[in-house]
């Protein structure tokens, strides 16, 4: 199977926008879905539809089976210990909000510290800020350097600062702006040396890297389905059972309880159901299972080589554009190799990202412009907006060439 074959399976890629063939380079925001996923959604919405975990009838049983099968698929995909560690949510944002609430309720007291890095998406900042407001905890910032890389020594300084060790480190696997792969295993090792658990925002990471939560020893790992070729409104929070068993539930409702009594009070179900109140997006989750099975069916080596080739060529070609500066350059920082996924955020002298993106759109090219939900990181670099082209496994080298040539044309108009 080659890239052209993979591409054929994504109907959305074969359309025109503004009369031009679509070149979809906004995969960091959301990906298109393969037919395998679309078929599951259509079949279930149109036929196999019954609420899960409750009824004894045929359709309910079918849906429950598919939903719980998806949990096994996710468990195997992450190499987690058990299905009990896999909580289904509506996306990374919901996963991190759940975690911030439940972890905060259970473990965080006034004066405690939580560490976040400066390279985080708003989804991995704001829930922690809100948790700090609720609990009286303090947010510590692990700052990036001028290249965007994180110096582990700075983490050790924060961890060494006082007798009371921080309660949690929240860090992204791969920044949605920089595209640099953080050396997670080493970072987690450092944090664990100080007995600090680590929560990972894997929204970008899960898409481009093989994630093994056991070998990483991550305590929590959150990701979305819609960036992983799966349905919108699906997500996962992986968490070690020892935490999930202790953590207070986030939302209350059906499915998350053991017994409900108006007089004696309510007892909760065991994880993961304790954290899945109400009717889950079971059709979407079945679709997420299909998306992961689709990925499992691909030759991962081929995909990795292809994405690496795009990354290398894009850095080369964009580097030749006068005044173009890419954020996040792969290399060796602090003795660690930082790889880069094919996500290219850039500033270009004399042209505003929103103008560039508007004109590229007329040429059929979908890219992102703006703050990319990472205002603190942009502020760190002294900029208010970037242009981002983010590639997926189905994007071709021809599309990269077309993007670069179109960008040059647009710059002729704007500069």
């Amino acid at each position, binding site marked *: 199977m080659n890239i052209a074959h993979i591409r054929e399976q994504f109907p959305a890629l074969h359309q025109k926008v503004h009369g031009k063939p679509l070149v979809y380079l906004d995969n960091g925001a959301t990906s298109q879905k393969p037919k395998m996923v679309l078929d599951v959604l259509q079949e279930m919405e149109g036929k196999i539809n019954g609420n899960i975990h409750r009824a004894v009838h045929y359709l309910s049983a079918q849906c429950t089976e598919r939903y719980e099968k998806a949990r096994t698929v996710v468990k195997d995909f992450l190499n987690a210990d058990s299905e009990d560690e896999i909580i289904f949510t509506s996306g990374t944002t919901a996963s991190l909000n759940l975690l911030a609430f439940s972890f905060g309720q259970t473990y965080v007291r006034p004066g405690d510290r939580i560490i976040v890095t400066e390279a985080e998406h708003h989804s991995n900042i704001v829930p922690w800020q809100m948790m700090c407001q609720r609990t009286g905890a303090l947010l510590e910032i692990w700052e990036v350097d001028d290249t965007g890389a994180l110096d582990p020594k700075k983490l050790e300084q924060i961890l060494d600062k006082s007798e009371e060790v921080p309660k949690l480190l929240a860090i992204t696997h791969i920044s949605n702006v920089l595209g640099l792969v953080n050396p997670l295993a080493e970072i987690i090792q450092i944090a664990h040396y100080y007995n600090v658990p680590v929560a990972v925002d894997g929204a970008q990471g899960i898409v481009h890297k093989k994630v093994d939560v056991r070998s990483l020893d991550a305590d929590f790992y959150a990701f979305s389905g819609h960036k992983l070729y799966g349905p919108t409104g699906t997500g996962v929070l992986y968490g070690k059972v020892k935490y999930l068993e202790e953590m207070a539930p986030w939302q209350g409702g059906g499915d998350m309880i053991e017994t409900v009594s108006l007089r004696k009070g309510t007892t909760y179900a065991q994880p993961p159901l304790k954290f899945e109140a109400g009717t889950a997006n079971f059709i979407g989750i079945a679709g997420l299972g299909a998306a992961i099975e689709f990925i499992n069916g691909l030759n991962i080596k081929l995909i990795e080589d292809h994405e690496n080739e795009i990354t290398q060529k894009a850095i080369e070609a964009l580097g030749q554009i006068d005044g173009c500066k890419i954020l996040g350059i792969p290399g060796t920082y602090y003795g660690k190799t930082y790889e880069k996924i094919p996500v290219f955020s850039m500033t270009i002298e004399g*042209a*505003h990202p*929103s*103008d560039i993106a508007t004109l590229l759109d*007329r040429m059929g090219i979908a890219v992102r412009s*703006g703050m990319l939900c990472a205002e603190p990181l942009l502020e760190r670099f002294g900029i208010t*907006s970037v242009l981002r082209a983010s590639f997926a496994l189905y994007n071709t080298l021809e599309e990269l060439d077309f993007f670069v040539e179109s960008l040059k044309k647009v710059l002729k108009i*704007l500069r």
Partner: protein
Amino acid sequence: MTIKDKQAQIVEEFSFMEDWMDKYEYLIELGRKLPPLEDASKTEKNLIKGCQSRVWLDVKREDGRLYFRADSDALITKGIVSLLVIVFSGHTPREILDADISFIDQIGLREHLSPTRANGLLSMIRQIQMYALAASAENPA
């Protein structure tokens, strides 16, 4: 020229342009021609919220008329705000408040802006109307 006449003139100019690339290039030209605001006027107060790029709108009142000046760090946005400056600048608050703003739909601008940017445009128009409202309350004609 009345606000209505100015709008008609813009609509006519846009009618000569066939595709949207031309229209954007025209907006870019307008953006380039709009004199930049000096830094002292690029204040937090003049910054319009809800735009994808930064837009500043400054107002001055002279002989009962409002004079607008604007700037943006993005050229297309600057072109769009330049249209608003052309249409509304030099009119009385009452004229501005009574104006029927039709040119945006007529030139197809609204449908060619993403919803985020259309909201930004709406914020700019609202800000102009707010200035006019404040001015007319201060000194009802």
